[in-house]
């Protein structure tokens, strides 16, 4: 069904199977630890006053929540404003459709080479690979994206895509891939080398492709933020600009932008503002000397409208992709972005990926969390990530049916592939657990039996195996906690 389309399920080893490799890679762990410590400290320095932080994020969350409450209306307004401004708007239900639209625009313009600004949505589409299959070369121009493109890798972080690599690794890579460049440990030299190569690419590109941070319905304005200037170049120098964005990026008013801009770079990299904030409201007008003569916007659904059906889960769509949640996540910091095997890693990915790809493909992701709440504390738009993780864990075993009142019924379960993680063994264990814990006599008998014979049960006994795979089997003491408490005179009574 078309509505279920979207990202390809990235099947393959699951999180728990991939994690040990990352955990046992000291270089990778040092790279991430160092980077995350730095990012956390820089962010904290940007919000010294807790009262102001609380006020600002309350505003940011409200702006996004209000926009979501009016989402269909705002998308229509955005479309009509952009169209009036001369921007061509396209809609795609799936990433395949979005790829076809982008390819069609490029082919019609006769474009052979494309320069790209950073865009997570284009990663979601696997756009570069798609264009390459059709003979169009797409070069990433964000330095981090360029590095991982050279290395043939995928981003490991949504803001700093090559954060998993250190200087030495990048230096080796450049010496190998950039003709005439000696190996150098000097970051300025490495940066200058990338500038030289990419300048030519910019000058010769037939089209530029970018993402969008915010789309303003009121004015038909696409807001893009960045530090390098590659985003401005991609959207100004080539004769054609194609922007791709998820449908959740729309906000109502231009006045909504300042609070979001006050939150995003501070939360992301600990900067008060990015070097460039680029607000694009149309193609080159008659008489103007630069800027693309054609601008297109591709609005991508890819599962987002389904996320929108559930009022609680729809909070996921408030995300402004700042990455603060991953920077502060104790799990992400230890395993890095690639372990998630998903476009969006870390806490936001753990709630977004299962909803977009389905619980069959990614139902393990919500479990890759300690529910420590660090993500919720730093999220600038107050997404209750741990609550949503728990909700998705539940949806994976006991799915919410789409309400019968919901006509026409779009899907059978609220979350795609709801119930995919259901297992008889687990249900059995929990049924047993409930039985024992609600019958004091039975409880006493079972604990006594375990105290007496529990240590003889082998660690790899059926039912036990799944638990002991990654944990030591507990040792049972001969006397239960209840016995010990009673002996010390604690009374099993509610004090009056």
């Amino acid at each position, binding site marked *: 069904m078309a*509505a279920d389309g979207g990202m390809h399920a990235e099947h393959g080893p699951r999180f728990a199977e991939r994690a040990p490799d990352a955990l046992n890679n000291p270089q990778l762990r040092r790279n991430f630890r*160092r980077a995350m410590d*730095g*990012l956390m400290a820089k962010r904290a320095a940007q919000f010294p006053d807790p009262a102001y932080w609380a*006020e*600002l994020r309350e*505003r940011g969350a409200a702006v996004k929540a*209000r926009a979501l*409450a009016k*989402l*269909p209306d705002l*998308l229509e307004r955005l479309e009509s404003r952009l169209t009036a401004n001369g921007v061509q*708007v*396209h*809609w795609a*239900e799936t990433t395949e459709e979005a790829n076809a*639209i982008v390819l069609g625009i490029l082919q019609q313009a006769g474009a052979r080479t494309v320069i790209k600004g950073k865009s997570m949505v284009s990663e979601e589409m696997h756009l570069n690979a798609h264009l390459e299959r059709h003979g169009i070369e797409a070069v990433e*121009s964000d330095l981090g994206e360029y*590095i991982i493109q050279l290395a043939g890798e995928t981003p490991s972080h949504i803001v*700093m895509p090559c954060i998993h690599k*250190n*200087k030495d690794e990048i230096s080796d890579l450049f010496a190998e891939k950039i003709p005439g460049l000696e190996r150098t440990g000097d970051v300025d030299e490495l*940066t200058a080398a*990338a500038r030289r190569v*990419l300048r030519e690419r910019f*000058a010769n590109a037939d089209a530029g492709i970018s993402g969008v941070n915010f789309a303003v319905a*009121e*004015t038909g*304005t696409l807001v893009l933020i960045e*530090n*390098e*200037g*590659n985003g*401005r*170049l991609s959207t*100004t*120098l080539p004769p054609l600009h194609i922007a791709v964005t998820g*449908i959740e990026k729309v906000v109502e008013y*231009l*006045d909504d932008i*300042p*609070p979001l*801009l*006050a939150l995003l770079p501070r939360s992301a990299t600990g900067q*008060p*503002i990015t*070097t*460039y904030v*680029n*607000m*694009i*409201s149309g193609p080159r*007008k008659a008489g103007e*000397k630069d*800027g693309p003569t054609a601008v297109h916007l591709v609005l991508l659904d890819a599962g987002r*409208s389904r996320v929108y*059906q559930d009022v609680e889960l729809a909070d996921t769509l408030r995300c402004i992709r700042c990455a603060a949640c991953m920077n502060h996540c104790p799990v992400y910091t230890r395993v890095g972005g690639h372990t998630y095997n998903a476009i969006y890693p870390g806490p936001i990915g753990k709630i977004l990926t299962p909803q977009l790809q389905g619980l069959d493909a990614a139902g393990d992701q919500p479990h890759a969390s300690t529910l420590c709440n660090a993500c919720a504390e730093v999220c600038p738009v107050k997404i209750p990530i741990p609550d949503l993780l728990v909700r998705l864990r539940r949806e994976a075993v006991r799915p919410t049916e789409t309400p019968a009142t*919901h006509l*026409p019924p*779009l899907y059978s379960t609220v979350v795609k592939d709801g119930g995919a993680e259901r297992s008889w063994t687990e249900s059995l264990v929990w049924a047993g657990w409930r039985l024992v814990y609600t019958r004091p006599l039975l409880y006493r008998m079972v604990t006594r039996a375990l105290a007496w014979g529990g240590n003889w049960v082998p660690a790899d006994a059926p039912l036990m195996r799944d638990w002991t795979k990654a944990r030591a089997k507990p040792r049972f003491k001969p006397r239960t906690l209840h016995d010990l408490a009673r002996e010390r005179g604690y009374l099993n009574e509610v004090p009056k």
Partner: protein
Amino acid sequence: MSAASNTARANILGRLKAAPGRPGPDLAPWTPPTYTDKLVRFRQMAEANHAEIHDVTAETWPARLATILNNRGVGRLMVAPGTPRGDALLRAAAQGVPLPTLVPYDQPVEVLKDALVHRVDAGLTGTRGAIAETGTLILWPTAEEPRLLSLLPPLHIAVLEEDTLHDTLAAVVRDQGWAAGMPTNALLISGPSKTSDIEQTLAYGVHGPKELIILLIRKGE
């Protein structure tokens, strides 16, 4: 829009409209900061962004700029004829102020691309004002003063008048009624182009200018 895109549009909007309604929250109150001395704040933040600020006067800034650029060995400076700043420099050069060679941005980028990409050392623009909170310049490029002038040359010089300082972006968007008419491209610039993609080490000039010089025209001087 193609037929496929039309179908997609109808399906997406259909699904969104079929979803349960939810109340939009009232916007929480938020008071953006104000500064008793905007200039002090601007200076501090702009310098933290790695911009270099020179205090100048409305009359003598071209001569001052000539000194700054000669000290740096800038050979070719691109300017925008038909703008107050560009014309002031062209006049000054004609009157013998020892400015670098002035290259006018007076043709479409298609004609000037090679010069812009490879053969100018600096570009000069005016500004619409600045934001004290973040040390940010506001530029609305125009037909006369194109977008790439502040982006392609390795050194960007921006002329800013002291009395166009605002507290915050929120204040300037609201006070000037930006929503009533946005230009093709509105820009906020805070320092030179930079990256920290390699081991979080800052490096300047990765794609845009390596340096940003702000000529600050003091009021009443």
